[in-house]
C-alpha cells in the first residue's frame, strides 16, 4: 500500500516536472508571465513531493518491509536505525531518488530568490532544472523503481511494480543487509556530499544556459551563481576527501586514492569546477574568457551526469554490462542531447561573447589563470582518457585492459606539481600590474620584462625559505628528485601565500594602528574571496605535502608472525602479542590481534589492534590498527586472507610518512572555502563601460 503511495508520488513529481518544462516554454513564447510563474510554482512543488516520496521509502527501510525489493537488498533486521535511514543511498534506485530529491531542494532554493532584476533568466533556469529532475525521475519510474515489490507467482518470486496476474505479495523473512563496506561513518556521509556537489553544479549551468538563450553577454549569470559554484565545489571536495578517508580506514590497502574509475568519475567535475572557479574571476574583473567559462560550466554539468552514469550504469565492469543495463543507454542519450544542445547554443552566441579586455602580458593574471586552466584541462584529459580507453579497447579488440595508477601518476604528476607552483605565482600577478602611461605605446617585449620583473620583485623574499627547505631536504638525505621538486614548489607557494597575508596585515597594522591579528581578521572579513582563496591554497599545499609523503616514501612489509615475534619497518618494531576472536551483537565475527609498537631505541610506543570483521553474509572487512603522528602513520593490517591462527598470524605493515598533512590540509581547505563562500551583501555590479575603463588596474584583480 505504502509502496503504491510512494510510486504514485514519484509519478506525480515526474508529471509536475514535465508540466513545469511545458509551462516555462509556453510562458516565455506567449509572453505570459503567469505561465512562467506557474512553472516556477510547479518546480517548487517537486521538492515537497520528492520529500514525501523519500520519507516514504525511508519509513519502509526503517520498519524493514522486506516485501519491497530495495528494502530487502539494502537492509537487514540487525542494522541500527541510522544505517537503515542512510541505506537510502546504499543501492541504485534509492540513490537515484536521493539525487532527484537533492536536486529539487537546490532548484527550490534558487527559485525562491528575488528575481526582479533577472526575470528573463527565470523560465530558462526552471527549464534546465526541471529537465534534469525529470530525467532522473524518469530513471526511477521506468527502470529503477525503488518501490518495486516482490510477488509470488506460479513460476516463483519475482519483483514487479504492478501486481502480475494471479500473484500474491511475497515478503522475505530477512533482508540481505547493507554492504559491510558501506557501514562506515565516512561512507554514510560521503555519497550525500558528492551528490550535493553534483546537483549544486546544475544551478550555475542552468544560469549559463539561461544567459546563452537570452543573449545576455555580461557576467550577471556568474555573479548570481558565484556562491552556488563555491557551494558545489565545497561539497564535491568534501565528498572526495571523505571518500579518501573511508578508503584509508576500511579498504585495507594502506592508501587513500587508487585511481579507480569510480573515484575519477567524481574527480573529473571537480577539475573543471576548479578551473571554472578561477576563470570566472577573469570574466568578472576583466570581461574576458566569456566563451571559455561557458565551455567549462557545460563540461562540468556533462561530467556530473557522466560521473553518475559511470558509477550507476555498470559500464565500468564491462561494455556488455552497460548494454544490458537499462539506465545506461538512457544516460548516454541524455548526456548526448544536453551536450549537443549546450554547444549549439554556445556556437549560436559565439560572436556576442567577445572579450572586453585585452591581455597585456604572458605574466598577467589572465594569462597565468589561462595556464592554470590548461593544467586542469590536461589532468581532465588524462583522467577521461584513462577511464574510457579500457572501454574502447574492449569494444575494438574484445579485450579489456587495465589503466592503473602508474599511467595516471606519470601523466598527471608533473601537471599537479606545476599547479602547485602556479598557485603561488599567479596571485602575485594581481599586484604585478605595472602602471604605465600608455600601454599601447609600449614595446611588447619591454612589457613582458616589466611584468616578469614586478613578479620577481615580489618573489625573492618568499623564495628564501623555499630555498632553505630545499637545502634542508638535501641535508636530510632525500634524493628522490620528484619529491625534491614537489616539496620545494610547495614550500615556495606556502611561503608566498603566508607572506601575502603578512604583508597586507603589516601594511594595515602600520597605517591603521591595528594589531596584526585584528588586521588579519579585517582583511579576511572584507575581501573574503581573496583571503578565503589564499587559505584554500594553504590547505592544498598541506594536502600536497601529505600526498608527496605517502606517494613517494611509503614503504611496506609483510610477514607471518608467531606470538612474541616481530616485524621491522622504517625504524619501528611491531611485536605480535595475542589474538582474540569473538562475536558482536550486530552479527559480526571479529578476529582481533594485539600488537606492540616500539621505536628504533626499543622504547615502547603504543599497542595497536588490527582486526578483521566477518559479517553474517560472509563478507570480510579489514580494519587497520594505526599509530598516527604528524610525521607518519604506522598502519598495521591483520590480513585474513592468508590464514590466521592464534599461534601464527600474517601482518602487513605500511609506513605512510606525512599522510596526516593530507587530512589536516583538508580541514584548512574547507575552512578557506567557508571564508570565501560566507554570505555577504550582494554588491551592485559596475556598469560594463565603467568596468572596462576602471578594471584594468583594479587593485586585487
Amino acid at each position, binding site marked *: 500500500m505504502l509502496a503504491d503511495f510512494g510510486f504514485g508520488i514519484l509519478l506525480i513529481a515526474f508529471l509536475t516536472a514535465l508540466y513545469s518544462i511545458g509551462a516555462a516554454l509556453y510562458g516565455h513564447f506567449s509572453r505570459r508571465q503567469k505561465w512562467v510563474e506557474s512553472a516556477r510554482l510547479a518546480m517548487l512543488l517537486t521538492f515537497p513531493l520528492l520529500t514525501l516520496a523519500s520519507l516514504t521509502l525511508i519509513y519502509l527501510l526503517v520498519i524493514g518491509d522486506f516485501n519491497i525489493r530495495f528494502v530487502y537488498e539494502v537492509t537487514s533486521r540487525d542494522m541500527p536505525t541510522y544505517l537503515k535511514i542512510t541505506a537510502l543511498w546504499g543501492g541504485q534506485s534509492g540513490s537515484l531518488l536521493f539525487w532527484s530529491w537533492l536536486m529539487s531542494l537546490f532548484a527550490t532554493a534558487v527559485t525562491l530568490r528575488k528575481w526582479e532584476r533577472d526575470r528573463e533568466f527565470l523560465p530558462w533556469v526552471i527549464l534546465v532544472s526541471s529537465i534534469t529532475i525529470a530525467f532522473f525521475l524518469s530513471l526511477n519510474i521506468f527502470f529503477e523503481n525503488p518501490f518495486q515489490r516482490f510477488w509470488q507467482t506460479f513460476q516463483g518470486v519475482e519483483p514487479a511494480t504492478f501486481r502480475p496476474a494471479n500473484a500474491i505479495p511475497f515478503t522475505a523473512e530477512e533482508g540481505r543487509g547493507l554492504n559491510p563496506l558501506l557501514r562506515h561513518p565516512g561512507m554514510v556521509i560521503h555519497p550525500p556530499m558528492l551528490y550535493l556537489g553534483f546537483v549544486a553544479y546544475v544551478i550555475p549551468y542552468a544560469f549559463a544556459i539561461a544567459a546563452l538563450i537570452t543573449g545576455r553577454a555580461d557576467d550577471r549569470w556568474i555573479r548570481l551563481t558565484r556562491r552556488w559554484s563555491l557551494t558545489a565545489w565545497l561539497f564535491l571536495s568534501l565528498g572526495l576527501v571523505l571518500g579518501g578517508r573511508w578508503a584509508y580506514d576500511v579498504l*585495507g590497502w594502506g592508501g587513500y586514492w587508487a585511481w579507480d574509475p569510480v573515484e575519477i568519475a567524481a574527480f573529473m567535475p571537480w577539475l573543471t569546477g576548479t578551473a571554472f572557479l578561477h576563470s570566472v574571476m577573469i570574466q568578472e574583473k576583466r570581461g574576458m574568457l566569456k566563451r571559455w567559462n561557458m565551455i567549462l560550466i557545460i563540461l562540468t554539468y556533462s561530467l556530473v551526469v557522466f560521473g553518475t552514469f559511470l558509477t550507476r550504469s555498470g559500464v565500468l565492469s564491462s561494455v556488455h554490462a552497460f548494454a544490458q543495463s537499462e539506465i545506461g543507454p538512457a544516460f548516454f542519450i541524455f548526456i548526448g542531447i544536453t551536450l549537443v544542445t549546450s554547444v549549439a547554443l554556445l556556437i549560436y552566441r559565439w560572436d556576442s561573447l567577445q*572579450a572586453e579586455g585585452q591581455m*597585456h602580458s604572458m605574466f598577467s593574471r589572465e594569462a597565468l589563470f589561462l595556464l592554470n586552466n590548461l593544467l586542469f584541462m590536461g589532468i581532465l584529459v588524462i583522467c577521461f582518457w584513462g577511464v574510457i580507453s579500457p572501454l574502447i579497447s574492449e569494444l575494438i579488440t574484445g579485450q579489456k585492459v587495465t589503466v592503473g595508477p602508474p599511467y595516471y601518476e606519470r601523466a598527471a604528476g608533473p601537471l599537479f606539481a606545476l599547479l602547485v607552483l602556479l598557485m603561488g605565482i599567479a596571485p602575485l600577478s594581481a*599586484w604585478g600590474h605595472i602602471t604605465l*602611461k600608455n600601454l599601447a605605446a609600449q614595446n611588447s617585449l619591454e612589457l613582458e620584462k616589466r611584468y616578469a620583473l614586478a613578479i620577481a620583485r615580489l618573489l625573492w623574499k618568499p623564495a628564501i625559505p623555499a630555498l632553505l627547505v630545499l637545502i634542508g631536504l638535501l641535508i636530510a638525505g632525500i634524493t628522490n628528485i620528484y619529491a625534491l621538486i614537489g616539496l620545494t614548489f610547495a614550500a615556495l607557494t606556502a611561503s608566498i601565500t603566508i607572506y601575502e597575508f603578512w604583508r597586507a596585515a603589516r601594511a594595515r597594522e602600520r597605517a591603521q594602528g591595528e594589531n596584526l591579528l585584528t588586521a588579519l581578521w579585517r582583511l579576511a572579513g572584507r575581501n573574503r574571496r581573496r583571503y578565503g582563496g589564499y587559505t584554500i591554497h594553504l590547505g592544498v599545499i598541506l594536502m600536497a605535502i601529505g600526498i608527496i609523503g605517502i606517494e613517494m616514501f611509503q614503504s611496506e612489509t609483510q610477514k607471518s608472525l608467531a606470538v612474541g615475534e616481530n616485524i621491522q619497518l622504517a625504524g619501528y618494531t611491531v611485536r605480535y602479542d595475542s589474538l582474540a576472536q569473538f562475536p558482536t551483537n550486530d552479527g559480526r565475527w571479529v578476529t582481533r590481534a594485539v600488537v606492540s609498537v616500539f621505536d628504533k631505541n626499543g622504547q615502547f610506543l603504543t599497542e595497536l589492534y588490527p582486526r578483521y570483521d566477518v559479517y553474517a553474509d560472509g563478507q570480510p572487512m579489514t580494519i587497520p590498527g594505526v599509530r598516527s603522528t604528524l610525521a607518519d602513520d604506522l598502519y598495521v593490517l591483520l590480513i585474513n586472507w592468508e590464514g590466521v591462527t592464534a599461534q601464527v598470524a600474517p601482518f602487513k605493515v605500511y609506513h605512510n610518512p606525512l599522510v596526516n598533512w593530507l587530512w589536516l590540509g583538508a580541514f584548512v581547505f574547507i575552512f578557506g572555502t567557508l571564508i570565501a563562500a560566507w554570505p555577504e551583501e550582494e554588491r551592485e555590479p559596475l556598469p560594463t563601460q565603467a568596468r572596462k*575603463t576602471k578594471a584594468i588596474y583594479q587593485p586585487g584583480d
Partner: protein
Amino acid sequence: MKKKLAVLILLLIASLVWVGSANAQDTTPPTDDEVNAIAKQLFCPVCENTPLDVCPTEACKQWRDLIRLKLSEGWTEEQIKQYFVDQYGARVLAEPPRQGWYWLIYIVPVALLLVGLYILFRAYQTMRAPLAEQPAETHAPTGLPDEYLRRIEEELKKRN
C-alpha cells in the same frame, strides 16, 4: 655383512644430508615481500581494479601462491608477469603493454596536451591584439610598498 650394511646406511644418510643441504641452499622460500613486489604490479583478473597484493579473494590467494611457487622455481619477475598475461590477457597488467593500438592510450593525452598548449598560445596572441577602444591610463607609476598599501586600502573601502 653387518659392517657393510652399517657403511651403506651411513653413506645413505650422508648422501641424504648432503642432498638435503644442497636443496636447502637452492630453495630459500621467497618472502612475502618478494611475492607482493610482483603481485603489486598485477591486477586481479577477477575483481575490478584491485591490485593482486591486496585482493582478499581466495582466487587471488592462489595466484599469490603461484607467484611464490614460480619464484622458488627461479623464475624472474618478467617471466612471471608474462605468464599471467599469457594466461589471463593484458588486463592483469597495471597499465597496457606498449604495443599495437595500445600506444594510443599513451599518445592521445600527450597529443591533446600539445593541442591545448597551441590553443593557449593562440589565445595569448589573439587576446593581445589591441581592442578598438584602448582604455585610458589612470594611475601614475609608484613604488611598493606605498602603492601596495594604497591598493589594499582602496579595495577595503570599496568593500565597506
